[in-house]
């Protein structure tokens, strides 16, 4: 069961649900089926519901926002998340304001989905993680899919009538597409057990078999494609030094839900580690940190116990080896932590 196939299945479900559901974006039509094949075979199956667009992200996101005025639900594929910068005006200045200014003008929902992150050697403007642009805008819900939870199931929740958020930005890590979902057995081979906390879109909890109820050395917080790097680092920390870890992996990364902060406070650990592919400054980690600072009076958590890990601020190279130097990875996470204990 590959991640990409499950995304494709989720989009198929979306189109089958209502004739007024649309997917728009560049190169989506068959036989190409999208740059990463997420919409493969869908234009054959739902020819009137998939709209191919010219290379003009801002315009077609504007079109999608307009379509929601007439009760249409629209999924927009942005070919690379680097182009989120182009559509940020549409999302921040238009979509997130329009309902407040014009009395719930958006009758339908907007779902922007985009392949995110690097590790493919695509260079400086096709490898970034720019979701930080939208942190702090409470009307824009940021969701990051991961390989621990079937994206089809997550998309079913997102596309359900019960899900009320009007403006949604969904990150799919591009290197996850060809990979298989990580099963419970896969986690167990690495010494981890999985638990899914049913809060909102859900938080995945992974913990060393030895530490379910005890204190762990590290509590990791990460999302999306960082799962693999964090899991590898946590596994290595256990193999090398028998240092135990718990990983919290939320689907919703903005706004940060109170339940996620409560989960952090309810766990026993020595160090809290926030890992993201973003650069560390002005990051998800800093957003988490600000939330924790507001609530830390109830806990013994000290700033010395919190470590934010992310990528370098240097230009991401198109050379795969140099790119590896730019981006955070499991080795860097391991090296940052192994000598702390």
């Amino acid at each position, binding site marked *: 069961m590959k991640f990409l196939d499950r995304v494709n299945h989720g989009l198929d479900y979306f189109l089958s649900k209502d004739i007024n559901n649309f997917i728009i974006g560049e190169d989506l039509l068959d036989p190409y089926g999208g740059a990463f094949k997420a919409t493969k075979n869908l234009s054959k199956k739902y020819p009137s519901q998939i709209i191919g667009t010219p290379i003009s992200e801002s315009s077609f996101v504007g079109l999608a926002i307009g379509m929601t005025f007439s009760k249409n639900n629209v999924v927009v594929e942005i070919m690379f998340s680097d182009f989120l910068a182009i559509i940020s005006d549409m999302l921040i200045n238009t979509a997130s304001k329009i309902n407040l200014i014009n009395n719930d003008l958006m009758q339908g929902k907007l779902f922007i989905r985009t392949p995110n992150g690097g590790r493919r050697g695509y260079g400086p403007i096709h490898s970034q993680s720019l979701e930080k642009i939208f942190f702090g805008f409470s009307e824009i819900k940021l969701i990051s899919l991961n390989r621990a939870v079937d994206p089809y199931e997550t998309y079913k929740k997102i596309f359900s009538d019960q899900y009320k958020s009007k403006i949604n930005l969904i990150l799919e890590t591009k290197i996850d597409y*060809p990979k298989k979902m990580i099963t419970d057995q896969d986690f167990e*081979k*690495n*010494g981890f057990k999985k638990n899914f906390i049913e809060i909102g879109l859900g938080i995945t909890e992974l913990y060393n*078999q030895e530490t379910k109820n005890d204190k762990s050395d590290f509590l990791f917080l990460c999302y999306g494609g960082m799962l693999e790097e964090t899991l590898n680092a946590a*596994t290595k920390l256990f*193999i090398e030094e028998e240092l135990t870890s718990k990983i919290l992996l939320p689907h919703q990364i903005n706004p940060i839900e109170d339940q996620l902060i409560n989960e952090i406070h309810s766990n026993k650990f020595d160090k809290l580690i926030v890992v993201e592919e973003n650069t560390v400054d002005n990051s998800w980690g800093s957003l988490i940190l600000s939330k924790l600072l507001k609530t830390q009076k109830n806990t013994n958590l000290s700033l010395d116990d919190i470590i934010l890990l992310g990528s370098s601020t240097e230009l991401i190279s198109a050379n795969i080896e140099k790119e590896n130097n730019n981006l955070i990875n499991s080795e860097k996470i391991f090296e940052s932590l192994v000598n702390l204990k």
Partner: protein
Amino acid sequence: MKEIKVPSITANEDVVKLSEKIIIKKDTLIKKDEVICILESSKTSFEFLSPDEGYVHYLYNEGDELKIGETFLLISEKQLDDKFLTGLIKDNKPSYEQKISKKAKFLLTKHNIDINKIKKNGIINSQDVLAYVENKNFTKKIFQSNPENYSDLETVMKKNYKKTVDMKDIENLKDQLSYSQKKYQEKWNRFIPPFDVLFDRWKNAENYGFGNNSNISSMSYVIGDVKIGKNCFIGPFTILDGSGGLEIGDNTSVAAGVHIYSHDTISRSLSGGKFPISHSKVIIGSNCFIGPSAVVTLGVKIGNSCFIGANSVLTFDLNDKQAASGNPCEIIGTVEIGKNGVTIKK
């Protein structure tokens, strides 16, 4: 025969997918530059053309991931035998590798333990190895222990007690109990339930405060104030009810399944709770024999050297050397202790 390797179809990708095989009929010779399969990267599809004329043999299945540079096709001048190809067809399922922590590896070497002896679905850590060593020593200790002293097992079990129990612990416990049962059988020619193997009968009696050299099965219920003298035998499945007081002298045998009650709930039950539970002390003398499954009711006083037959329900007192049996119970004679043996004289 030519080995065809997986080409790099986009920069920086080390794997591609065998998206589709173009099935070519058996015994059909394909020409150079004919499409023979479709490879897919994360961003593009690629029609792979035959680099030569010949017969095509796929080594992977559709949907498999192929590493750049590995052989995935054979093109031969002649059709190849199926048996020959069978050995070449690749299985790209990942092989399972047991992960072991460094500390665990160190301990495995130190204690000269074969890793395959430790089964775990996860990473084997130092605690797993130490538990194995402790368990091995435990088993060794049991093997070396004096089978007469079964309480040793209890002591070691207590030491090995862990908060969490997994199936491995249970399997180990079962093995150890089975072993002890065998040793017990060798010693006494009895195969008995694990409880009586686990807990030494004489130790039980000592724990209850019974007299010297008395013994009692672990399969007995001892309730309330029970006083038992020395050299007594209390068999399995017995109930010794001392809630109203129970005293047994020396050298008395209480056979399997005997119930001795110093209380009853007859009045309370029949009156719908109007009357309380009845209590009355039972006193049994020395040198008595109470047969299997007999019942002695509350308040009964039994003298010395008395005999009570199997399945009797004794509701009245017996003087010294009286024999009683049956339900309803009757005096059947007196106990005669002669030079050559013991008889019941009617």
